[in-house]
């Protein structure tokens, strides 16, 4: 039987604020000596009280809006009660009843049907836990606890179970990461743990699956301990296979939490998470509710272009391909660099319109995409000057160059054969031959030759 995967995602993102969520401790915790960034609040000492970080609130609302969510003007924090050694207060301050953002969505480019929307159920703000690591001390197996991370602001983005393939998950995660980086609210680095994902996976027989109004299975398996895109793919892939095998055997799949074991490449049940949970949520009495006005919320909106908008504009304004526009809008810095270079080209070569602007745009794009320029060290205007320089010696008619390349290749079949036999050094001879016919940039000639060879 064929099965279709049904996947939902919970993504946690640490906000890059200067201070923690509820106290003034520095939020930096990566590579910091253990328990050096703590105070009575984030250490959960008796009597300490939380005071929310305004920027973390604003950034969560900004992200919610970027993800198309409706913003709850009236909101509050809740306590989620459970015991774990990395949770100092015995409860996590989170948002349960009234998250900042609800009912948003992210569009994916689905190959078959054009565009697919992944629904975002909620975006809420909470605090991170401390960090546990296992160790042996005097033959005893223990956990070492570091509370530097305790209380770092954390945004949770929860989707509906709308993913039907690993590719969709992958695309969503990359897109989400891009948006977060555009907003400048987190580096969203999975390896450093500032972006963490928890997929929940189930599968259903494809034969009677209703795509329009999904009839979801009555279980789901939550996957934890995933700290890279690669592991995410592997863990989901493994889980789909595991569940398929179980169903094929006629077994029932139980609802559970499983952790990814990146050594054995399997998911394993997480025993301590198996206990039935009752988080006993109630409104956090230590923090008054949050009441915002529509104007306040509009004021927190990201003023720049979001990746999708920038992508569309790059295609429209600069006539770039999907591929080129995609790479150039990968992050804000590259996009800004490209635009600055195009602007510089307009100014520098504005009068000299031998090369049409359209070509300029393409040439600049190529320079950046093929990493022919170190954007960190070269200011955009300099890049343009470099291109102009090289053009002076190699301004060529593409057609003439192509013809010359073909001519040289046809006239030197022996040299071509020896190149193909591994004597790649002979390419210099070919380049020289072409250059004698059309005096172009040797790099460009080489590129063309290699393509043909």
């Amino acid at each position, binding site marked *: 039987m064929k099965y279709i995967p049904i996947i939902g995602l919970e993504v946690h993102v640490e906000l890059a604020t200067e201070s923690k969520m509820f106290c003034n401790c520095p939020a930096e915790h990566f590579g910091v000596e253990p328990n050096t960034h703590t*105070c*009575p609040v984030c*250490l*959960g*000492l*008796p*009597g*300490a*009280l*939380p*005071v*929310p970080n305004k920027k973390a609130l604003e950034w969560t609302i900004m992200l919610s809006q970027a993800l198309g969510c409706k913003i709850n003007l009236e909101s509050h924090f809740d*306590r989620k*009660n459970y*015991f774990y*050694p990395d949770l*100092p*207060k*015995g*409860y996590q301050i989170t948002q349960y009843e009234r998250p900042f953002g609800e009912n948003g969505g992210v569009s994916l480019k689905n190959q078959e049907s054009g565009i697919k929307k992944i629904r975002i159920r909620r975006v809420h703000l909470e605090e991170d836990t401390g960090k546990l690591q296992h160790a042996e001390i005097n033959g005893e197996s223990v956990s070492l*606890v570091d*509370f530097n991370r305790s209380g770092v602001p954390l945004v949770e983005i929860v989707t509906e179970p709308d993913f039907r393939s690993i590719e969709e998950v992958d695309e969503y995660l990359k897109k989400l990461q891009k948006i977060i980086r555009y907003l400048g609210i987190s580096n969203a680095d999975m390896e450093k743990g500032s972006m963490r994902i928890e997929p929940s996976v189930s599968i259903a027989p494809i034969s009677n699956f209703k795509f329009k109004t999904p009839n979801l299975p009555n279980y789901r398996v939550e996957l934890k301990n995933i700290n890279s895109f690669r592991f995410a793919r592997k863990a989901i892939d493994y889980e789909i296979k595991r569940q398929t095998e179980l169903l094929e055997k006629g077994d029932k799949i139980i609802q559970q939490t499983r952790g990814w074991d990146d050594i054995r490449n399997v998911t394993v049940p997480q025993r301590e998470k198996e206990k039935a949970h*009752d*988080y*006993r*949520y*109630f409104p956090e*009495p*230590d*923090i*008054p509710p949050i009441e915002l006005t529509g104007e306040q919320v509009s004021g927190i909106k990201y003023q720049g272009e979001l990746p999708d908008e920038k992508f569309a504009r790059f295609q429209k304004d600069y006539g770039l391909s999907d591929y080129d526009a995609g790479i150039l809008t990968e992050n804000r810095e590259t996009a800004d660099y490209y635009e600055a270079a195009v602007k510089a080209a307009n100014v520098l070569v504005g009068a000299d319109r031998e090369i049409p602007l359209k070509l300029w745009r393409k040439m600049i794009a190529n320079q950046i995409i093929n990493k022919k320029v170190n954007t960190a060290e070269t200011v955009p205007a300099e890049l343009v000057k470099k291109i102009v320089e090289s053009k002076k010696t190699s301004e060529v008619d593409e057609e003439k160059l192509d013809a010359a390349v073909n001519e040289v290749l046809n006239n030197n079949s022996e040299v071509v054969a020896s190149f193909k036999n591994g004597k790649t050094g002979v390419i210099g001879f070919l380049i020289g031959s072409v250059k004698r016919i059309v005096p172009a940039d040797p790099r460009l000639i080489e590129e063309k030759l290699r393509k043909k060879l």
Partner: protein
Amino acid sequence: MELNKLTLTEAMDGLSEYKFTGRDLVSACLSRIKEVEPKINAFITVTAEAANKEASEIQEKPGDIKPFLGVPAAIKDNFNTKGLKTTAASNIIRDYVAPYDATVVHKIKESGAVIIGKTNMDAFAHGSSTETSDFGPTKNPWNTDYLPGGSSGGSAAAVAADETIFAIGSETAGSIRQPAAWCGVVGLKPTYGRVSRYGLIAMASSTDSPGPITKTVADARTVYRVIAGFDLFDATSADRPVSDSGNLKKIAGLKIGLPKEYFRTEAQPGVNETVMAAAKKLESLGARVLEVSLFDPKYAISVYTILQRSEVSSNLARFDGIRFGGTRDQFNEENKRRIMLGTYTLQSGYYEAYYQKAQKIRTIIIEDFNRVFEKVDLLLSPVSPTTAQKVGASANQAMFGEISDILIEPSSIAGLPGISVPCGFVKGLPVGMQLVGPMWSENLILDTAQEYEQATEWHKQKPNL
């Protein structure tokens, strides 16, 4: 002159007139502590050495405004005091040395007061008797066979026994006013949010209020002025000036309501009558006293019990023995009972019926007070339906505290300020009357209480120890 018997006002006057030094005051209190502690057990920690040292090093610097410079103060042991043991009277943190000061403690220290010790209380403030302390019960200085009330029983007894000049207590629903009443001293419970809770070991976060326990109303006002005010570290603390609540208002013309539901038929004989006599006194001072009707306080007991147990179950979750303290089996039975009940009422499926319902009825109680405060300026009633009860009375009475605090709980739930002022005796034990006002009306309450106090002699009576 026995310096430990001085009121705060007298002590401050004497110090400023150089009649004696802070060192004299501190050593007078410490020797009194030495003398009566075996009988009273009001303190968990006495900081004799540190206090003596601090007092001997006191130096007045010109320009310093330290109103309490050299005045001994006792702090309830649920306030964090940096470098001092802070036990909340519980075995689970019996040896805990706080690494920081509660905001109230910080303010008291900044004002120049010398902390002479940490006072006994019901463990984690779970009680109204000080009998649930893991450090042994405190006894009532008026009769050591009797309880001091609680949970701030140690603070109230220490003030009544003249072991200190003043004390700090905390109230969630009665824990300042009820022990003040039973020990015959003054206890002010400020409006919720008026005094910072930062560093106060939380009981019920939505009603906890620190406040002074003192020998006179004037003293209560002085201490209140020092500890009140907005605190950046407490998100629930009120961002409004302390002096905003009604300037000196004379009793003449004041309308005082006597809620008929608060003069309960099951009250101990003599208590209602004593408070009625106080009402007459206020009337003779020019107040208009009229009967009013309030929502039956018995429902407030349920509301309070649910809110308090629920919040307790969450607030005590941090005691896991990893960062501080012992393991969770070291909670005493009363603590465990409250954690259990609160865990029960917060469970999914029960939350709406209990916690949320209680918060809804809280709204009804608040509206009820608002309605009455349209007719009267203040409310007058007994603090507790009884005088101090006998040692042992709280054992095996699951609702002992709730019932002895029945007349206080409604105003606590509503966040209202209230004061307990001595107004007489029944069978040799003190009776306290309480004045409750609208939100932020501390000044009106203090003014009225002070005028009453000046017209009576009750606060001058001292127990025979």
